[in-house]
């Protein structure tokens, strides 16, 4: 009896114990995917007025849900702050962390995470008021810079100023909202975060046209979704959900023409869409896993345009995020 009580108590105290091994089965049994998301960053993760989530990271989670359940609606988005995101993933509160998270060596090795790839190649930049007449980040010596806590941004900022022998006054806030609000009210001369974030946040400022993003990119910020360390099957499922979107774009399959393309003679297309081979089963998914992703979410290019690219308010150039075949860095291994 005592033993049973203690076992129950332990399960309550450290409830996340069993979540590590069989995430795919857990998710299927639960019937819904828990996705750690940003919640306040336009283009990556933001619910609209109707509560419908949209963004590049959000699409990745929808793609995983489409692959697992055949239904992209079966996702519960959990908004996480930069500070809390890793704990939420470690403790099993979310199954996937898709929250514009930079892939770094220490996060990969020390936090018990595995990054599944890069869904957005980014770099850190600065935004300043036009009135300051600053044209380069190298002119920011002695400036006060607002920054969000718990991100790689804080370190990059300190490193950049140190490397260029400039003095710096950082004002650190727990969330991006507070940091942007402080910048907007004049507490800081500059606001720094990933360049994509700067474009997104600029839209929320009182007078967006008064602010410019400086040309310097001071760091490499490969943003990628992460899963818990130690569950290779789930790692594969999430990884190949992203690769399916990239491969679909490369093969010219879109949400509009996916039904048509299924009749294609191209062996690469047939393998991806499941009409040849059993690649879906190998992942522990249905045969038409990739069809569901493309039909319900779209390929990577569609997702990019809709959320951050020309079809969105952000209008960010694809730059490094073009496919490898178009001169960018986005490259997915083949389905074979």
């Amino acid at each position, binding site marked *: 009896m*005592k033993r049973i*009580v*203690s076992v129950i*108590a*332990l399960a309550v*105290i*450290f409830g*996340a*114990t069993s979540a*590590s091994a069989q995430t795919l089965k857990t998710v299927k049994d639960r019937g819904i995917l828990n996705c750690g998301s940003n919640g306040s960053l336009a283009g990556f993760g933001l619910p609209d007025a109707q509560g419908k989530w949209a963004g590049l990271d959000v699409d990745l989670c929808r793609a995983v849900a489409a692959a697992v359940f055949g239904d992209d609606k079966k996702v519960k988005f959990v908004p996480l702050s*930069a*500070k809390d995101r*890793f*704990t939420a993933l*470690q403790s099993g509160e979310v199954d996937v962390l898709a929250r514009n998270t930079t892939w770094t060596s*220490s*996060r990969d*090795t*020390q*936090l*018990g995470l595995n990054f599944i790839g890069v869904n957005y190649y980014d770099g850190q930049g600065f935004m300043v008021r036009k009135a*300051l007449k600053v044209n380069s980040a190298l002119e*920011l*010596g*002695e*400036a*006060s810079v607002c920054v969000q*806590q*718990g*991100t790689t941004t*804080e*370190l990059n*900022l*300190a*490193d950049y*100023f*140190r490397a260029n022998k400039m003095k*710096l*006054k*950082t*004002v*650190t*806030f*727990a969330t991006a909202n*507070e*940091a942007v*609000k*402080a910048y907007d*009210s*004049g*507490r800081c*001369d500059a606001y720094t975060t990933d360049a994509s974030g700067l474009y997104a946040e600029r839209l929320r400022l009182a007078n967006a046209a008064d602010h410019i993003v400086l040309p310097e990119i001071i760091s490499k910020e490969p943003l990628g979704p992460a899963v*818990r*360390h*130690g569950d290779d099957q789930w790692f594969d499922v999430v990884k190949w959900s992203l690769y399916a979107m990239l491969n679909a774009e490369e093969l010219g399959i879109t949400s509009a023409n996916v039904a048509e393309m299924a009749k294609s003679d191209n062996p690469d297309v047939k393998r991806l869409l499941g009409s040849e081979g059993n690649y879906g089963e190998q992942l522990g998914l249905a045969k038409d896993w990739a069809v569901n992703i493309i039909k319900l979410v779209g390929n990577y290019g569609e997702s990019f345009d809709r959320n951050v690219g020309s079809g969105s308010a952000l209008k960010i150039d694809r730059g490094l995020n073009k496919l490898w075949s178009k001169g960018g860095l986005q490259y997915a291994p083949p389905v074979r």
Partner: protein
Amino acid sequence: MSIDLRTGSPPARVPFYNDPKVRSIAYQVALCAVIVFLVYGAARNAIDNLERAHIASGFGFWNQTAGFDISQTMISYSNLSTYGRAFWVGLCNTLLVAVIGIFLATILGFIVGIARLSKNWLVNKAATGYVETIRNIPLLLQLLFWYNAVLKALPDFRDSVNIPGGAFLNNRGLFLPEPIPQTGFNIVALTFFAGIVVSIGYHIWARKRQEKTGQQAPVFLVSLGLIVGVPLIVFLALGLPLGFDYPRAGKFNMAGGIEILPEFAALLFGLSIYTAAFIAEVVRAGIRAVSHGQTEASYSLGLRAQPTLRLIVVPQAMRVIIPPLTSQYLNLTKNSTLAVAIGYPDLVQIFTGTVLNQTGQAVEVVAITMAVYLTISLATSLLMNFYNSRIALVER
């Protein structure tokens, strides 16, 4: 059984498991065992899971380079310092706001508390309004109010408010001239400290003399002369050996001088004003607790109103005031962790914020932080309990 009755021997000894004494001990031992087992199990389980998930553990991070900057540092710190150093910076910032906050809250609280007992209608109602407004609004909202509504409404650095005496006020903070001691200033400081020591000695001597002979001595005036007057004369005699580093306009902001961050000011105002409302009530309760008969008795012995308050009412009120005052001090210290909402770099913001996030070692970092707050609170309690026992009613 029947044999026992017949022979009339004493009743059979109660079996040990029915002995209430043994039982109660057994229950307590069992409970302790369960608790120890639970705690051990939880700890073991946490360690196993951390290992299985390849999450780093241990305190090795303490001496690693932190790499980030902190806006307010009382001890030397740069982004090349270690996480351990960042911890001390955070602790100093927490203690700074807590100590100054306690000081301000106590003064304000006593003033408002006494004002609530005033017979002057306006003073009384103003104090009541203050207490009822402030203590019924959540502290977090008050901090956000101070930070966003009051301090950020200050002008931009180019339109800084120039305060006479070389100080500037803008939305980046308050910039004061920094005093730079020059040769000879040590002597002034020395006379100041000597003045304090001599004043204490004089105070003790005066009290002893009063107990013996009943003669009073002008302790306050003499102390004032020793602590303020003498150093001032020395300071003037040495030809003002003190320079000032005045803040001046830099490219983006004021440069030089002492900088008081708006985050610090907002937190300090918020905490002091909020806690003062509670202290005011504690003070009022304490004074009310002294029966009016004491005052009347004092008057009938011929004491005037002032000495009655100082010698009869306040010492008795303090016995009632100190214990709840202690918990207000503890509350203020603990509430300072709300700093995280307005970007003041206190222990929680630096250590369980940035350091936790960069190292990922949540268990260690949170455990250290909890231990620190526990230590600060226990130390405050200890000090206040000591003071309380000093002023407790001595029964003769």
